């Protein structure tokens, strides 16, 4: 297969995955009796129609970027962090507690402190899952899911109890929320009349930091090595367990920062429903962005659009906003399926063979190692081992595989 064909092939895979995900979405749209075209139209274009919509996309993209960056760190290091939701809540608690406890600090000191407190809160929650995995072999997916439920309960406990705004008791409304954080801890709004806040800069800077960490430092290289092939990394002297804990700790810290930024920039007090599924959407953003900061930034904007668009379909097309979960689930399934086909030389080769047969051309040369390259295992030298001269010289016998026996 030549280069153009490969590009066409990869584009076809992406197109097929997109159609599959949108098809699943369309089924559910149809099931709720919505006009599928109109519903997709509302989701994908309605938020872009005015300045408020565009800034609101960016407001949603900030926590999504931060969470997705953290998940990418964990993913690249071989752990799957499903716990961003809980880590974000712990970050919110820590950062708002810090801001409320130190109201007299000047702004240049209080904001970094509050953000760092948030990072610490999330880091503790993430590291807990990392240590459980490294020391006791606890599956990190299950432990982070459970830590999400525990964090959610702990969050409501604090907001209904120790951290509740005393005003709420006086007025008797009993809304579970903390007092407003001091003005010195507020992140500035960038455009008057919108909620776009300075957290955008934090997200952009941290995206660069993550790129440098993972691809330009030796620690990042070791993390990626531990994630790509733990056994090989261990032989190379990398302490895989240590990097598992480090990755989960960092991943949690990023989710915690996302929580802190959301409070300091948008809500200005700890309230219920802040996380609103960002922890789960962040997983999709991270995968969609190819687990790389350069992909995560546009991906978070796209999913910011999707989240806002889904809110709007509720009003304009009478489709419940839960629909965004359906689309996210379908997108995850489509991405992980498509990844097995992208740049897969074996599938490309088989496809090229079939195309050649249809067009009546001679079949292209099989790639080494494919079943087509080994018509008979007794043949010697073995073309499967073309890239292993030592084995070829020794004439070592190989296992007979089912395909070879045809």
């Amino acid at each position, binding site marked *: 297969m030549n280069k153009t064909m490969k590009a066409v092939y990869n584009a076809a895979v992406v197109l097929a995955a997109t159609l599959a995900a949108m098809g699943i979405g369309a089924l559910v749209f149809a099931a709720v009796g919505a006009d599928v075209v109109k519903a997709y139209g509302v989701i994908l274009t309605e938020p872009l129609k005015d300045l408020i919509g565009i800034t609101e996309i960016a407001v949603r993209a900030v926590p999504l970027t931060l969470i997705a960056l953290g998940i990418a760190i964990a993913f690249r290091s071989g752990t799957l962090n499903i716990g961003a939701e809980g880590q974000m809540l712990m970050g919110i608690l820590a950062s708002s507690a810090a801001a409320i406890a130190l109201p007299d600090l000047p702004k240049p000191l209080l904001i970094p402190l509050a953000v760092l407190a948030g990072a610490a809160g999330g880091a503790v929650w993430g590291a807990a899952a990392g240590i459980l995995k490294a020391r006791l072999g606890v*599956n990190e997916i299950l432990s982070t899911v459970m830590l999400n439920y525990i964090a959610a309960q702990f969050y409501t406990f604090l907001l209904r109890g120790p951290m509740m705004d005393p005003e709420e008791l006086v007025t008797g409304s009993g809304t579970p929320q903390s007092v407003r954080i001091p003005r010195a801890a507020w992140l500035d709004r960038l455009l008057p009349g919108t909620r776009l806040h300075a957290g955008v800069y934090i997200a952009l800077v941290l995206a660069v930091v993550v790129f440098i960490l993972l691809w330009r430092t030796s620690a990042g290289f070791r993390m990626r090595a531990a994630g790509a092939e733990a056994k090989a990394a261990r032989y190379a002297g990398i302490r895989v367990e240590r990097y598992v804990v480090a990755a989960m700790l960092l991943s949690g810290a990023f989710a915690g920062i996302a929580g802190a930024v959301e409070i300091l920039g948008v809500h200005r007090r700890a309230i219920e429903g802040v996380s609103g599924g960002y922890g789960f959407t962040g997983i999709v953003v991270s995968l969609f962005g190819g687990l790389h900061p350069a992909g995560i930034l546009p991906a978070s904007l796209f999913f910011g659009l999707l989240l806002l668009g889904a809110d709007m379909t509720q009003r304009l097309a009478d489709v419940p906003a839960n629909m965004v979960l359906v689309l996210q689930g379908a997108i995850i399934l489509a991405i*992980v399926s498509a990844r097995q086909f992208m740049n897969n030389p074996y599938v490309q080769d088989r496809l090229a063979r079939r195309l050649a047969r249809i067009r009546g051309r001679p079949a292209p040369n099989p790639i080494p190692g494919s079943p087509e390259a080994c018509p008979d295992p007794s043949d010697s030298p073995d073309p499967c081992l073309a890239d292993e001269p030592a084995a070829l010289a020794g004439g070592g016998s190989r296992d007979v595989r089912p395909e070879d026996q045809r």
Partner: protein
Amino acid sequence: MNAGSFILNILILGVPFSVALLLAGLGETINQRSGVFNLGCEGIMAMGAFLAFLPPYFLAKTPLAPSANLIGILLAVAAGALLGLLFALVVVTFRAPQGIAGIGLQMLGWGTAGTLFRRYVGGVTGVTGIPSLPIPGLSRIPILGPILFNHNPLVYLAFLLVPVFWYILFKTPWGLKVRAVGTYPRAADSLGIPVARVRYQALALGGAMAGLAGAYLSLAQAKMFADDLIAGRGFIAVALVYFGRWNPVGIMGGALLFSLAQSLQLSIQVAGIDFPYEFAVMLPYALVIVVLALVRKARMVGPAELGKPFDREQRV
């Protein structure tokens, strides 16, 4: 309330609470024995719970009302099997990583159930649910009667399925195939066992069981549907499989342990013992983590190829 009736109450509540975990856990055991780790269980349960809830909700005042529960259960089981097959397509045929694919399936199932629920039902509404069926004679035995023999039919079914699943897994040719493709798929393949087909079958069965577990939650336990009805029970069921060492009898023990923890938590609240509500709700989730940390050594008896896609063309 004296101590005796307090404990009796915990046990009477605990047995039916264990059923959803038990049904989903049995299905997940089959999945994992075949080498596939299905985290989408939670999402399948959500779909099952919603679909089972629909017929009793819509058919309440029609002539079909008496069989509405049965229709609901069948719908849930069928949808569960279909979602299991969808998962098989992704992780067996396309060989996608199972952990993240499971999370995708969970979102898909949960989101679809929530979307359809808000569109067609809206608020939380109750259904009559499945009535309990005391077993004549046996249910009158003091203490044991109310604990074991005074429940709805699904409770009896779930406990009867424990030996059935044990038999299927360890005494039938199909069970042997399931264990073989989960332990050493290459050897199974060389003996002519169709690895992919067996995994598809196992995932369909596991999905059907998760659907049934969801139906139990909405029709028998809660007698209503809400977005967060499942509340992590699917994930707990997956954890239970580790705890129960991939053995149906062990799963039953684990499910009872968790349901007793839950009914203890409820009884504490009912008895008015001063204990923050939120910490009581945390209890089962924290228990999962503790249990997973303790069963580490049991890993050895697990299916060797758990979580690894099989590619017969891959070089060893």
